[in-house]
């Protein structure tokens, strides 16, 4: 009876993309706790597992605020995870709170990426600093930070081109963008958010590791949680990088960026609809 339940719970975790190792580990912890605390009821076991999972994923993080001057936020990730959209939504979210935002269009590679960000800039009422397609992304980032400084912006958000973590030269380019931002302003970038697509499976962990090798990641944005994917791989990402999930993406509209909520995230994993 109980054995069946354990297997069912393990299956739920694996199907939420938590990965075999984490799933087996969690259920093992559950077994031990159940034994020690003499728990048998299915409902209680479920509750315990959710509790363990919450502990594993940890508290949500909040956006860093630089107390002395603008906060520079760099957005990174593999292709198509939702970086530009997240920059746009974040800009809107900040502008709603009365913050002055400047955007840097440092994806100079993908066709019409600059135009895409410009449209988001209009939606959020944020200025967009841009160069030509194909120009040096570090130079754009530098200019964006300088513009933000001189305009006394509260936030400077830098969109970057999508790149696979296995492309060494592009990862070096990213590192350079980070370095050049630091040259434009001491202590910047203050925040580097890795955008992870909830639809992604185990590969997200490789992504996280290699991005963190190139630039110091400070938090995660988990996008596309409006679909049916559960995004369980963030548990491994959070525990490997030791950085929190800060925001989630739940759609393509301006309002569709929300603060991460561990409790709701865990509940959704067990919500089988």
């Amino acid at each position, binding site marked *: 009876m109980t054995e069946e339940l354990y297997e069912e719970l393990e299956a739920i975790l694996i*199907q939420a993309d938590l990965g*075999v190792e984490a799933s087996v580990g969690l259920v093992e912890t559950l077994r031990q706790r159940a034994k020690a605390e003499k728990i048998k009821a299915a409902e209680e076991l479920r509750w315990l597992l959710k509790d363990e999972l919450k502990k594993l994923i940890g508290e949500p993080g909040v956006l860093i605020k630089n107390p002395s001057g603008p906060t520079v936020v760099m957005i990174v990730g593999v*292709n*198509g*995870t939702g970086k530009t959209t997240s920059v746009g939504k974040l800009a809107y979210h900040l502008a709603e709170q009365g913050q002055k935002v400047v955007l840097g269009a440092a994806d100079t590679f993908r066709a*019409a990426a600059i135009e895409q960000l410009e*449209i988001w800039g209009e939606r959020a009422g944020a200025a967009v600093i841009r160069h030509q397609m194909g120009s040096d992304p570090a130079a754009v980032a530098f200019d964006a930070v300088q513009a933000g400084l001189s305009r006394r912006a509260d936030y400077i958000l830098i969109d970057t081109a999508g790149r696979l973590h296995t492309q060494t030269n592009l990862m070096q380019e990213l590192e350079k963008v980070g370095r050049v931002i630091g040259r434009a302003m001491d202590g910047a970038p203050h925040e580097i958010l890795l955008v992870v*697509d909830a639809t992604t499976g185990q590969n997200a962990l490789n992504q996280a590791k290699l991005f963190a090798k190139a630039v110091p990641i400070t938090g995660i944005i988990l996008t596309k949680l409006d679909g049916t994917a559960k995004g369980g791989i963030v548990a491994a990402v959070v525990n490997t990088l030791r950085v929190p999930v800060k925001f989630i993406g739940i759609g393509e509209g301006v309002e569709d960026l929300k603060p991460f909520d561990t409790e709701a995230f865990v509940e959704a994993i067990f919500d089988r609809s």
Partner: protein
Amino acid sequence: MLFEGLSQRLQDTFKRLRGRGKLSEKDVKEVLREVKLALLEADVNFKVVRTFIARVQERAVGEEVMNSLTPAQQVIKIVRDELTELMGGSAVQLRFEGKPPYIIMLCGLQGSGKTTTAGKLAKYWQKQGRRPLLVACDIYRPAAVKQLQVVGESLNIPVFALNGQDPVVIAAEALEYAKNHNHDLIILDTAGRLHIDAELMGELQRIRERVPVYRTILVVDAMTGQDAVTVAEEFNNAINIDGVILTKLDGDARGGAALSVRSVTGKPILFGGFGEKSDALEVFHPDRMAGRILGMGDVLSLIEKAEASIDQDEALKMGKRMLSAEFTLEDFQAQLEQMRKLGPMDQILQMLPGANKIKGLDKIKVDEKQLRRIEAMIQSMTPEERRRPEIIDGSRRRRIAAGAGVKVQDVNKLLKQFEESRKLLKQLGLLEKKAKKGGLFSLFK
């Protein structure tokens, strides 16, 4: 970890099971437990794994163990054959039959790579003599139309777009335009959408009702996890897809989604995307994908190749020596002879799982023309020199060069390259040892 995946974990099992006649249920179970883990780690859907394992188990129990293979290898071989079979066996070519223009509709989740793929397909078919027209049906995402226009421009392929129109109307008008402008192929780039978005799924249905779509292709990101099954199933139920394109295969994702998608829809995977460049599109090969999902590179084809062309003991010995510090110019020479039968060394090395992760391995290139000169140089050396190349000083180099009819620089280059290769191979060998459960080359045992 370097040699992630199945091959290393199987070493123990291999050892235990060596030298039996028929596959017992226990043999099979032991190996399949590892296979199951490998598949799950590769993101193959949980339920798909379960069905698959059950199927292999049924097939494998009681089967004769082939002479040269151990029971464990035999199970793995069955696993790979079944995987390959499940993914369609051999490569499927999309054929154009009937009356043009042929409309190809691309669809998929947000960010799966539709627009990039649209450009690649247009170029691919243009090279085959077609006259493609790209059509911008993504009217929602900011600058999506512009993106396709830029892609089209860079490829010199016309892009059809209409401002402020419904995608259904755009598709219909594009068809008219194509007929009038002598395009025989129309590629519809549709907006990314969630499979649970009834309204947008309805839009795809309406496009299909309005224009005769020749093939509907689902574009899937190779990094997709467990959800691939749901996505593929829903798209297939709503609009009955004809095939799949798997994108972002140039990364290091194992790509289990390929198996998931294929097994729930039964539709073939037509192409794989291997990069952002417009020519980074390849016909999909189920057998290669099977090896990738299992995380064992092409070890099996290597086994097969080695079996077919050379003595297994020889291959094993060679493999071991290549990875040890004792690899000498003598071995190198023997290797050169073997190569003619087995294939070039760089290719052999590339078949090993994890090999692509070793920096500099791609530099061990032996070009056929060079081969003969290298052979001549090695032949001009004394046995002592071949075993201990470090003793080859300036005067010896001049002698060797004269004997082989090459320049002294050529000898210098050979020795330098050999030294570099030896270092790399040694590194590979050391890493091999570190991957606890035994060497790759024990696969040959």
